[in-house]
């Protein structure tokens, strides 16, 4: 009997490859067509893609910078300033939004009718209004409506609250500061050792001590002792208090927070907290009631039940959606441009206006945001793996 073979035009393996090759040809061809159009258009304008412009002098000021910057610096440095501003606002935003979100999420589950309703109304209002509208309202309607600096509200400190933002006392490093940094590093090391030992003890005896509390206390103790020691020996504290002073039309010294920064940070925090609250609520509700009852039956008290039973289980449900909220916050910080805070997008926009380099600026900007997203999700995936339920 002759063995029948499938003709190649009906062989699925061959067909699959043909389909892929056709797909690839279409993608590459349309990509090449678009690229060709782009290069022709750019050549006409004399703007062939290159990143040399990053070394040219920027010539524009940036209101807020974490690293030294002046208008005679390069475009590259301006971009770096923007990136650092984005990181600053996202980092602080994530911390505050998590705290506020947890508070509101717990309020939402509270037995207290008033707290419960306030949390519900808050969430329903915030979640149904675009963040950009909230930010603009917050900036123009609240922070810019504060009194002028001359009539500034002066809180103890002195802290000046005006439409120029908030100026408040802040620590200023003195000569002994670098010495104190060593003390802090030592404290961190000691705290890590305490953490490690206590975890070991917990594993051996089956009674987990309050690891976080003890290691934090260790660190704080070392920090406090170091502070006192250095002050006694060198007669100078590592940080001196720097108080803002009113000089003419502005304040000098202390920590100055601009209204743009305040509006952006608080807008992001209030907005994201509403979403985080829902995540937290869903997480806590996902732990079945029987778990709590069983824990109480075993004789754990309320706090222990939360710490040892409810929280570890809720965390597993909370972490993945929390990751996407953190990513959203980082991406949403790009709305800063609308209220004039110099974040990455805003600086990149200014650079584009000055140089006309649309393609390069877009590529740089997207690359930076993509790597932010990638880093956040890598970290959160690692954390998620760590707390995941270990099944048999």
């Amino acid at each position: 009997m002759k063995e029948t073979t499938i003709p190649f035009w009906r062989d699925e393996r061959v067909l699959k490859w043909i389909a892929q090759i056709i797909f690839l040809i279409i993608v590459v061809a349309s990509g090449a067509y678009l690229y060709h159009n782009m290069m022709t258009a750019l050549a006409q304008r004399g703007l062939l893609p290159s990143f040399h412009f990053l070394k040219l002098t920027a010539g524009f000021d940036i209101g807020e910078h974490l690293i030294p910057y002046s208008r005679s610096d390069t475009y590259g440095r301006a971009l770096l300033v923007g990136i650092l501003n984005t990181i600053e606002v996202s980092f602080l935003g994530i911390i505050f939004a998590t705290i506020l979100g947890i508070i509101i999420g717990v309020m939402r589950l509270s037995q207290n009718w008033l707290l419960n309703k306030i949390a519900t109304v808050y969430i329903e209002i915030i979640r149904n209004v675009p963040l950009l509208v909230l930010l603009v309202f917050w900036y123009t309607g609240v922070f810019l409506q504060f009194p002028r600096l001359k009539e500034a509200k002066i809180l103890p400190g002195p802290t000046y609250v005006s439409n120029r933002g908030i100026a408040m006392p802040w620590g200023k490093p003195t000569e002994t500061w670098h010495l104190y940094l060593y003390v802090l590093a030592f404290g961190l090391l000691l705290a890590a050792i305490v953490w490690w030992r206590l975890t070991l003890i917990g594993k051996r005896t089956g009674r987990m001590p309050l690891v976080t509390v003890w290691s934090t206390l260790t660190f704080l103790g070392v920090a406090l002792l170091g502070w006192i020691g250095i002050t006694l020996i060198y007669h100078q504290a590592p940080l001196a208090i720097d108080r803002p002073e009113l000089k003419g039309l502005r304040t000098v010294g202390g920590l100055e927070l601009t209204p743009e920064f305040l509006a952006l940070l608080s807008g992001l925090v209030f907005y994201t907290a509403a979403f985080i609250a829902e995540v937290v609520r869903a997480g806590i509700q996902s732990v079945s009631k029987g778990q709590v009852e069983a824990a109480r039956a075993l004789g754990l008290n309320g706090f222990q039940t939360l710490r040892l039973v409810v929280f570890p289980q809720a965390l597993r449900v909370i972490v993945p959606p929390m990751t996407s909220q953190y990513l959203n916050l980082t991406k949403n910080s790009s709305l800063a441009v609308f209220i004039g805070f110099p974040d990455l997008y805003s600086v990149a926009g200014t650079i584009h206006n000055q140089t006309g380099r649309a393609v390069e600026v877009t590529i740089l900007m997207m690359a930076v945001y993509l790597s932010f997203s990638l880093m956040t999700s890598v970290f959160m995936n690692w954390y998620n793996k760590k707390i995941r339920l270990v099944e048999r």
Partner: protein
Amino acid sequence: MMNREPKQYSSGEVLAPPTERYTILGWLHKNLFSTWYYTLLTLVTLYILYAILKPSLIWIFTQAQWEVVVANLRLFMVGQYPKDQIFRIWLALDLLAFTVGLAWALFLPKERRVGAVLVIIPLLLASLPFISSYSRINWILFAAIGVAGWALGRWQPKKMRRPLIVLMLGYFPILILLISGFEPILKLVKTNYWGGLLLTMLLAVVGITLSFPLGILLALGRQSELPIVKTFSILYIEMVRGVPLVTILFMAQLMLPLFLPPGMKIDNVLRAMAGMVLFAAAYMAENVRGGLQAIPKGQHEAAWALGLNGFQTMFYIILPQALRNVIPVIVGQFIALFKDTSLVAIVGLLDLLGIASTVLAQPEFIGRQREVYLFIALIYWVFSYAMSYASRRLEVALGVGER
């Protein structure tokens, strides 16, 4: 122990569990003042609430100057859309009312409460003191047409099924044709005259509608066994989801013109729409993928066993079920997109938010930021909240997720 005679019930009678009843004082005690720290918490919260609400309410009712909203109402709603062509927007709205009324009668005959919203909201809008009599009449007409559609559906439920599906599928092209016009019957209205709430709505509708086919293709690509197609889909989806929408709008504004062959131009609004579609497609793909993954493997195997090939399995068996399951998620995405359209204001479009800056630049309304932005926030809130409320009710009524 006492043996009480069990009460006799007639067979089959099931009593509802006793409802809890409190006196007012009892309710207060249980919900607000049960322990000393709850009492403290309640009092502190009440004080904070009072401290925030009192000045806000005083401001809203006595100090705020709302003329800026009344004087610019048309600008907020339709932007620069020619005044003598506004009837086209009303026509589109009336058609929508008819379609929704009909759909309600056919698909949810028992759900009365949300159906009534179709009447109550337009009548409420018609009774607003500051709108023109033209709008007033049109809102009443809107409600009447909605009711007419509903009545028609109740009267001829069988016969209206087919026209309804045609209407639902055809609504989007009809809408675009009506708004943009087609020579020689309707005057062309260029997209840069679209503005205000109209533009916001259109951006969201166009974004969700056009991203739908793209999203399905990408989702299928991501599920596919072909490595090249799969890699491409994953790369696209993850890249778009990894960057903020503004950067995509930025790209659409600046790079899209470069990609076009020389001599071809597209205006701002179309560029923004292209950006929205490309952005929404990535999210749509993930939503559809969620639906695809929820289909049990048995469905595939059964389809193969029946002799269907890959395409037939996908289009007749898998996709219809997957898409039915993701309807609520897509409604959620539409609401998110509706809010996200506000970002086009950053690239200089005159949507609801963008037009606010124009209004605030008028010399007689300088310093009216609070009023204007509060009004805009209210509009966004009403629409998003109404949509999410309706979709929640719809989910319950349709029994999505249940079988």
